[in-house]
């Protein structure tokens, strides 16, 4: 049995460089937990957490916004397989979220599984499509966040701001 999932999670998804400031604003590169996080005034402990959040936001709100060719992209250091892997005194392991992202991508992306299984399509090709899909939803989510921030920056002063963003969005 072949496993698309295993292949997919070795990838490192990217985001548009214009959103770098959002990452710097809301999360801490290389990570900061607990008091450290609070001290720095960040919502997210790591960059990828924000990435995951933006993905789901875009997913639920159906903001599919592909990154144009030629746009500058950047990424962070952790491939998907490491996301949520760290357990500590104050954090739990949430690597299970990787599967959810994967299943969502499978559901939403037009991939020719038949062709894949026949061997007509390369595995890498499919994974590439999945990643592209991932980046597009995330891009959409990031743009929602950026818009909100420009609109009412004070919204992000509440500790429940990101929770509310997700809860308010129901998938269409």
């Amino acid at each position, binding site marked *: *049995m*072949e*496993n*698309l*999932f295993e292949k997919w999670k070795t990838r490192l998804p990217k985001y548009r460089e214009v959103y770098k400031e959002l990452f710097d604003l809301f999360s801490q590169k290389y990570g900061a937990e607990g008091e450290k996080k609070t001290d720095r005034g960040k*919502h*997210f*402990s790591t960059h990828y*957490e924000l990435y*995951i*959040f933006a993905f*789901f936001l875009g*997913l*639920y709100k159906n903001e599919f916004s592909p990154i144009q060719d030629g746009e500058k992209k950047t990424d962070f250091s952790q491939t998907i397989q490491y996301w*949520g892997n760290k357990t500590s005194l104050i*954090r*739990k392991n*949430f690597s*299970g*979220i990787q*599967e*959810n992202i*994967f*299943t*969502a991508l*499978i*559901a*939403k992306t037009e991939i020719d*599984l*038949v062709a*894949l*299984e*026949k*061997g007509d399509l390369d595995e890498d090709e499919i994974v590439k499509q999945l990643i592209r899909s991932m980046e597009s939803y995330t891009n959409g989510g990031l743009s929602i966040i950026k818009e909100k921030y420009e609109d009412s920056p004070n919204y992000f002063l509440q*500790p*429940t701001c*990101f*929770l509310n963003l*997700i*809860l308010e*969005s*129901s*998938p269409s």
Partner: protein
Amino acid sequence: MIIKKIQIENFLCYYNEKSFHFEDGLNIILGENNEGKTKFFEAIEWLFNGTNTQLENLVSSKKFKEITFEESFKVSVSMVVENTNGEYKISRSFLVNKTKNNDIETRGLNFEGQETDLATGRRIPINGQELLNAIFPFQIREYSMFKGETELNIFENEEALPNLINLFSDAKPYQKYTDKSRFLRERAHQAVKESTEANQKNQRAYNILESEIFDLEREKERLNIFLSSTEDQKSKLEKNIKEAEKFVDNAEALSTINELIKKIEEKITYLNSKIDDNYTTSLFDEYWILQNFEPIHKEFVAKISEHSKRRRELQSQFDQQIGIRKGEEKAKAELINNIIPLPIGTPSKAHMEEMLHDEICKVCNREAKVGSEAYSYMMQRLTEYLETQKINDSELDTKETLFKFDYTNRLENLSISHEDNLKNIRLIETKIKDLFEFNDKKKKEIESLKEELEKQIKERERILGNSKIANEDKLLSIFKNYTSWQEDLKDLNKDFYDLEAKQKEILKKIESKKEDINKIDENSAVAHLLKTREILNDIENIFTDTKEKKFDEFITKLENKSNKYFGQINVEAFTGEIKFSKKRIGSDKVKIEISLYESGGRYFVPGTAVRTSLNISILLAISELANEENNETYPMIFDAPTSSFGETKTGNFLNLIYKTSNQKIILLKDFVATNKDNNTLFIKSEFNSINRKKAFWVKLERPFDDKDLSTMNTEVITL
């Protein structure tokens, strides 16, 4: 003795001659602050006590400004009094002139007395000091003039009252009896001794006993001194403790409240720590981010399910094709001469079945009966055809497959496992709600605790504010001191008890030695002398005891009268009583302690107003008793004795004072008010209802400049 007239001339703010004519009973002098009231009091003080230095400071600036060089004027204060013996005048005066440099020069300081013979009207000069001592003795003056409310606290000195009682009471005359009887007894004792000594036989024993008694007496005296000083220490300590007790109640309450406050703060901290507000983190750690994931999951499931079906479909079609080809090859091999057979399924299954049934080949029209070769061949053909319709995996050529890879299996697994997880996802919404509720509850608890905390902090401030020491540290240190003072007092009490025990022992020893001497005396001295001595001894005891009794009776009377006045004039409506308790230290020192007890019997520390009422009650009681005992009264002069009372209570007080006998001159600032429109002073109408014999108003002549003394001239208006 009553004061009939006081005349003040060019003294401080009293320009030229100003007179007050007083009557027996209550005389009130009203005046706004700094307009001559206290200066009046000071004038009388100067008259009585005088100061020889700094006379320049007593001179009326206004008068001095008026005169020229070479001119001079007199500064004087004089008083005319009347008592049972006649009318007298005392005056103190000096002359003032201006130097060339405009300086003040004083001379001719004079203190003179004068007696007016009521019969002839003749004025006889008397020595001023002697006259003053006669008509208004110093010890009495000490308890008759009070400047301000705090000066009334004379009884803080525990010896003040015994002195007063000795002054005024019935016990006074008895003093000379005790003195004289002691003298008589001592003389008689001496006589006996001399008589006994004449008898040589007893001399030595007598001498020994006498010296022993002498030593014991000395020891007794020493003990008295210790007792006295221990008593003083105890007194001081007790006073400190009583003062501190005012605060200690507060300090104890303060300590309790600090404990309480600490507990509340700890609880708040604990509750804060319990609040879980890691909302963003929980999106991941608790998978809250999946709350809306179910539809997506369903999409996934549907897609995979569809794909799986499609895959099977394709596979099946594929397999079917392979099966058909296979069947065809097989059929091909069985035809004669290897000729290409007709495709499988030609003739069709239905035709074949028909032909077999009819046992005839309807293509070539020949019989094919059951068991014949033609029948068997047709049957076989049909059977093979039917076989190819069944897909047989094992006959498939492994070289030829449709799907090289199987991703579906894993994907299906994902689908199933996440289907199980759906129920968890469905719980997320409730979990989030529960958490918010939990946090809210904690927050509400914290809020109500914070309210409680504020209340306690306010209470703490009130306690600190109520105590005269608003500094928390000082209060707590007083509390600490208080506890150690209590310890010290315990020790002192023990010392005192021991000393008293020792003293008792010595007195007993002295007694027994004296008895021994008496025995010797009895055996030798002349009986008569002995008897005399005995009677005189008894008389001395009788006199001493009677004096003591009178003293005690006076105290009881004083206590009753004081309580009577206290009940009337006490403006704080304190229901309790004054108690005097006598303490005899050593053989001749007496102290009287004044305490206040609430009706429950609890000791009470009075505040200012109650203390003033207390002191004035006692003074009035003493004065009244003195009057009853001695038939001579003395005036009392109070400057602002009730400043802490307020106007209404002062009014009540005055009306009560009015009823007491003997002359009183009271200076007040109450009942004087300012008219807001024209800024002038006036006497309030309430004053009309105040009972008094005479009333005056001292006020500065307007206009005046409060920075220029030479504009000050106090006018005396009789109301």
